């Protein structure tokens, strides 16, 4: 009897497999998240699962990076820029069936900004003074000072609205959100499965099931895509394989932009980098295009300041940091280093850093700067470089959107200490007029690029590969996310 049942089960599986071809998708990702609570960890892997799929906030990012309405259908901002009144969608339910109301918003925001909060982006909530529910669908947030970024901040995965009273420890392995997909299953080390939320308040998802499979090794990722084990790999880890996928009619290569400014971080307090002339020499010694071609196989856009080139407020500063080794040598001589000097170059694991590091080391040698290259893994890097500030140079991609504010913190690992920048940044934060904000952002970019704080290399590209019949995947990555709500199979 048991054998017959197994046979029937197999038949059923085959049958659903045939239909499911159009309603299920398996996507690959490199890093498995540690848990699934985006409000208690920075791992991008968490948002790659839950953002827009399971959890939603008051506002959200669209794929082009703009901020659009989320759980709040509309909002009014008071004259003084301090009061935000959010009108929530009504009839929104959590996956466990309970109603999402204004008190959930109040609870979530208060939890994120509480004293003992472990929210990785606590700064997003710093300007909030009070959160209050007027009725079930109206929330009033009062700020202590005007904050032009507030709606943007509320779109982050760290600002999603949880269900008041849920056991937050339990949410880590069984999230309960309001999104178009509900959490289904997690085989730790292997995959996470989401199923369509049939009671979704907005436009329902087209797919019924989404499986996210974790494959950390780039070679294995290549094999899994080629063998059809995964239908798409939204952020494919090995750019060297992309031309092969591109030439294959079964696949589409999707190239977009991310918020990742990849920089040659420079320890501004460590001699000789405390001399702006030396930092200027660095900027002229690096050939960005050679790095993009050599380390990223041509994927990436050169940058000259800490800002995403696709952002309307981007200010091109490339004139200031043209590749010119002669000028670099001359600047070094002026700074008193005619014979060059030796420094450290500490590289974290991603391939942009390891491969880019080799190329940069060669380029710096051309102008007389010798580097001792050390490869570190993330734990060591955070300890030595980020916390210990024991480095001359390092390469890292800063992937958070709109993160120019890190330059206002003199204790941040590259230790840029500029009173002028801090003042300008504070002024910008209280500015809510979009035109004035754009001007302010441009001024900040000019400041850091004329101070040559870091060597600005390139904007990290988002390079993905997908089955040629899949539609609706995000092209860009304005935040870490794999939004599957609009993905479908073309016939």
């Amino acid at each position: 009897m048991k054998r017959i049942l197994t046979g029937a089960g197999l038949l059923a599986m085959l049958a659903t497999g045939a239909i499911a071809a159009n309603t299920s998708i398996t996507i690959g990702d490199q890093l498995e998240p540690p848990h699934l609570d985006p409000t208690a960890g920075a791992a991008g892997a968490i948002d790659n699962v839950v953002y827009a799929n399971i959890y939603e906030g008051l506002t959200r990012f669209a794929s082009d990076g703009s901020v659009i309405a989320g759980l709040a259908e509309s909002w009014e901002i008071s004259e003084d820029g301090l009061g935000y009144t959010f009108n929530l969608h009504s009839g929104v339910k959590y996956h466990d069936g309970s109603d999402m109301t204004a008190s959930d918003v109040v609870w979530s925001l208060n939890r994120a900004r509480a004293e003992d909060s472990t929210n990785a982006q606590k700064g997003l909530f710093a300007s909030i003074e009070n959160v209050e529910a007027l009725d079930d669908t109206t929330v009033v947030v009062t700020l202590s000072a005007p904050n032009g970024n507030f709606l943007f901040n509320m779109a982050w995965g760290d600002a999603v609205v949880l269900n008041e009273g849920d056991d937050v420890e339990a949410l880590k392995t069984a999230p309960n959100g309001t999104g178009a997909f509900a959490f289904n299953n997690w085989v730790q080390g292997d995959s996470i499965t989401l199923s369509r939320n049939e009671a979704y308040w907005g436009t329902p998802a087209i797919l019924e099931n989404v499986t996210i499979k974790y494959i950390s090794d780039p070679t294995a990722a290549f094999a899994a895509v080629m063998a059809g084990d995964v239908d798409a790999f939204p952020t494919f880890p090995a750019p060297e394989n992309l031309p092969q996928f591109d030439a294959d009619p079964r696949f589409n290569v999707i190239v977009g932009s991310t918020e990742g400014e990849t920089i040659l971080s420079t320890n501004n307090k460590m001699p000789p980098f405390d001399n702006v002339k030396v930092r200027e020499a660095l900027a002229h010694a690096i050939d960005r295009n050679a790095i993009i071609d050599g380390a990223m196989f041509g994927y990436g856009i050169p940058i000259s300041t800490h800002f995403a080139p696709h952002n309307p407020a981007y200010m091109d500063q490339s004139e200031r940091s043209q590749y010119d080794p002669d000028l670099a040598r001359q600047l070094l001589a002026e700074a008193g280093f005619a014979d060059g000097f030796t420094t450290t170059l500490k590289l974290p694991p991603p391939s942009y850093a390891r491969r880019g590091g080799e190329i940069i080391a060669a380029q710096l040698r051309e102008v007389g700067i010798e580097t001792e290259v050390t490869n570190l893994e993330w734990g060591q890097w955070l300890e030595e470089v980020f916390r210990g500030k024991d480095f001359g140079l390092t390469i890292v991609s800063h992937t958070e959107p709109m993160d120019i504010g890190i330059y206002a913190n003199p204790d941040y690992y590259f230790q840029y200490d500029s009173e002028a920048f801090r003042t300008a940044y504070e002024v910008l934060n209280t500015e809510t007029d979009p035109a004035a904000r754009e001007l302010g952002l441009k001024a900040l970019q000019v400041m850091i690029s004329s101070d040559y704080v870091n060597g600005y290399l390139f904007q990290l590209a988002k390079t993905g590969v997908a089955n040629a019949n899949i539609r609706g995947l995000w092209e860009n990555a304005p935040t870490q996310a794999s939004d599957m709500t609009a993905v479908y199979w073309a016939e």
Partner: protein
Amino acid sequence: MLIFTLKRLISLGLSLVAASVVIFFTIEIIPGDAARLMLGINATQDAVDALRVQLGLDQAMIARYWSWVSGLVQGDFGVSYTYRVPVAEMVQGRVWVSLPLAMYALILSTLIAFPIGIIAAANRGSWADWMVMGGTQLGVAIPNFWFAMIMVNLLAIKYRWFTAGGFPGWDDPLIAMKSLTLPAFVLALPQASILARVMRSALLDTLSEDFMRTARAKGRTRRGALVHHALRNAMIPVLTIIGLQFSFLLAGAIIIEKVFFLPGLGSMIFTAITQRDLIVVESVVMLLVFAVILVTFMVDITYALVDPRLRRRA
């Protein structure tokens, strides 16, 4: 036999205590902070500090060692810093990949090694012997991650007989076994090569013993003498190797687990190290040490069963 077993048990206990000290203190000195790794480079220091307190990372090292060991004794492996679930729970899922994989590979390896080792020894110097010796030389020399990639390219990408990797769970045992077949085969091949060579030389050694001539003299056929007298006497070195190989397969399949993206113990330790989830590393390594010591213990007991002289000597 009782005294022999008791002595072995005591040495097992002492090894475990020594291992716990070495494991804990060597792993704790790895630089890096689990809390900062979890929250990333944009997090404020007070959020990181709050998390450190939550995780108990603010306590002294000795205090943490003591609570870890006293937990272990009571069967409590601690709670993962990163995943916030009990380590025992995480291990459970992984053991059901690693253990079957190791068993599967060991069975395959034995099935391949025994016949060809015996054939080579029985036909010493013949073409069959040369084939076995050459083939096993190759089997030992080929790096197994490379061999794994070749197998994936051929059998998963070109012919699509197998998936390129992954493990779908035990819901359907047939599919589960199928997904373990390729990794088990890749793991088994070098082990089988070693085992076949050991089998061959151990058999050759016993074949030249006096008692073998006696067995032949009293009328045993060549094959009869080989099967009834030589094989059992050649088992001691073979058992030693099998014991070592099982320990290796259980703990050392990290690279193969990476190539086939299997959620086994090896890849779990690897990830835990990069995440500075030290409690997981410590508990799982301790568990593996326990498994290895246990296997060694069982092999010791098996020796005594195979060779009665060892019982008296001990």
